[in-house]
């Protein structure tokens, strides 16, 4: 059924239809609409679930870990400082191999209080063992949330569905709302691999001495390495029921492109328009949209970018002392490829600043007109050229 939904509510609807059993959250802008809607569904009896309203994000993730250990389907949502506060529990949940799904709305970190779009919060959690999937629009937010449960439960790793603050969380778009029966077909009830059971008692999360710890960590990595294949299977199953698929990465007009822009989130939509516009002017521009960030889809990226002429990565995030985080990862993925195209890094749209078609056209032209990157990253659209110390 076609309907108009706020991006946040696209996630809430998916969570409702996924028939989760326990969720827990602490409010934070711009995530709040997601759980507010869910708490209403629970209170109205539209969902057979428990909503644990806790006193901080740290407690929210702890409560969800507890619930997931009991073998039920779980969900939480957060953003920015809330995610940062969860950090300790993020490591814990993945190492405990619990298939938790979380919606994370990308928002800047303070100080310099800022509630707007910025990806540094989620990317700073890249080493926590969570699968990370970035989405472009409300439909993809809904679909990816459903896929997230399917994927998480197939390999027992937690999944973070990442969406843009305001540009996606607070805007309304037409969305194809699935039928519950179809969702049930795609996502049957959870059959937990890990479940506290009084008939077969066991101890969870016990001491792991040097003799076993390393193997446990290797096992998480093995699961991560299998994740792209599992995701492909999730997508096949999803497409069979709903007729849509996205891909861990998506190449747009890349075959003969002179410059390929690497994009994530809602800025990918802006870039689709820019590709169309510039192509009509005869410019050879392409776009690679990155949906999966963890595990990093290295093979797909080597295949699609290895023989490219120039790659320009647009990062709405920054790793201080290094560069944009997507650019780092793309460079690392390509460095052992024999042709290894030059990778240009651009920083744009931090803290909610717009990335307009003109921003992307400027990035395209700068890349086209430069043979080799002059710096690790170029900051685009600064209002002051001189730095203050």
């Amino acid at each position, binding site marked *: 059924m076609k309907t108009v939904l706020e991006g946040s509510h696209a996630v809430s609807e998916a969570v409702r239809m996924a028939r989760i059993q326990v969720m827990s959250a602490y409010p934070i802008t711009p995530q709040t609409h997601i759980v*507010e809607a869910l708490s209403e569904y629970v209170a109205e009896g539209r969902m057979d679930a428990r909503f644990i309203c806790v*006193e901080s994000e740290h407690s929210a993730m702890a409560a969800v870990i507890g619930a997931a250990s009991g073998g039920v389907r779980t969900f939480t949502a957060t953003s920015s400082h809330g995610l940062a506060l969860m950090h300790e529990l993020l490591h814990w949940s993945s190492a405990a191999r619990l298939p938790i799904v979380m919606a994370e709305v990308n928002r800047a970190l303070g100080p310099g209080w800022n509630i707007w779009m910025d990806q540094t919060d989620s990317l700073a959690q890249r080493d926590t063992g969570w699968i990370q999937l970035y989405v472009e629009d409300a439909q993809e937010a809904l679909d990816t949330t459903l896929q997230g449960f399917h994927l998480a439960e197939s390999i027992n790793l937690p999944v973070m569905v990442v969406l843009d603050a305001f540009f996606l969380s607070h805007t309304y778009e037409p969305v194809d709302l699935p039928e519950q029966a179809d969702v049930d077909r795609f996502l049957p009830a959870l059959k937990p691999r890990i479940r506290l059971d009084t008939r077969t008692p066991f101890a969870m999360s016990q001491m792991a001495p040097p003799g076993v710890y390393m193997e446990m960590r290797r096992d998480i990595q093995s699961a991560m390495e299998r994740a792209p294949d599992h995701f492909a299977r999730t997508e096949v199953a999803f497409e069979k029921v709903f007729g849509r698929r996205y891909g861990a990465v998506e190449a747009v007009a890349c075959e003969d492109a002179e410059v390929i822009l690497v994009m994530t989130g809602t800025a990918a939509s802006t870039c689709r328009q820019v590709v169309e516009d510039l192509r009509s002017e005869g410019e050879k521009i392409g776009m690679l949209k990155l949906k999966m960030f963890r595990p990093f889809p290295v093979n797909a990226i080597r295949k699609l970018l290895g023989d490219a002429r120039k790659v320009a990565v647009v990062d709405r995030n920054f790793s201080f002392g290094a560069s944009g985080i997507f650019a780092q990862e793309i460079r690392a993925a390509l460095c052992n490829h024999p042709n290894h195209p030059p990778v240009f890094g651009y920083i744009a749209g931090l803290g909610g600043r717009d990335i307009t078609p003109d921003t992307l056209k400027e990035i395209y032209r700068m890349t086209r007109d430069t043979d080799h990157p002059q710096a690790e990253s170029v900051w685009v659209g600064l209002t002051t050229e001189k730095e203050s110390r």
Partner: protein
Amino acid sequence: MAIKDYLRQKFFPHMWCPGCGHGIVLNSMLRAVEELGFSKNEIVMVSGIGCSSRISGYVDFHSLHTLHGRALAFATGVKMSQPELNVIVPMGDGDALAIGGNHFIHAARRNIAMTAVVMNNRIYGMTGGQYSPLSGYGAIATTAPYTNIDHDFDIVELSKAAGATYVARTTTYHAQQMTKILKEAILHDGFSVVEVLTQCPTYFGRKNKLGSAADMMEYYKKNTTPIGSKAKAENPDLLERGVFVRKDLPEYCSEYDKVIETAMKGRS
């Protein structure tokens, strides 16, 4: 110094909703500081995040706008490094007692000299009206559309039990009493807690059908009474206002200095 000189005028107009009680707290607080005759530079205001915490943006003192729930931890650092400064920490009920609850009880236990002002509107105002640990059983909030089943804290009892050496409660209706209490609390050499019942007409008021901001203040007038009043004896449901605890115990920074002195045995 004129009251207006304590304001950071360039940050006005403020972001509070019409009728919000937080502005009255700001007013009483500035009057307290003025009556005490403090200069701007003798005061540090440390706040977390919430509508209440915005108060630190509007005053022309030293101010630190910190993380949600962490104001008292930041403030402890400030006080330990510069004990001569007067530290005021305005917090929302969520800021102070949900995410920041642990800092709250430990700051009280240490008896470090600062004034914690808990602006209790019984709701998370800034994020849109979710229930807080002060909403109380039976209240309505966006996260409890039918009814809240969580019981609330009694801030006064909690502060007492945690060891605060000055504990008081007042309301936005009683603005003059608030000024008086704040003056005492700021001068108190130890951890002081001032709970102020303050109206959030936008969320708590609307969700719980409490009428306008004025109606909510009227409610504070009718449903509170001075500590130990005859009215309280006749109607135990009334909430008491006034100073519940006022005692002298060694203050943390002074004690710390003594430890240093002992350890140094007269060496400098």
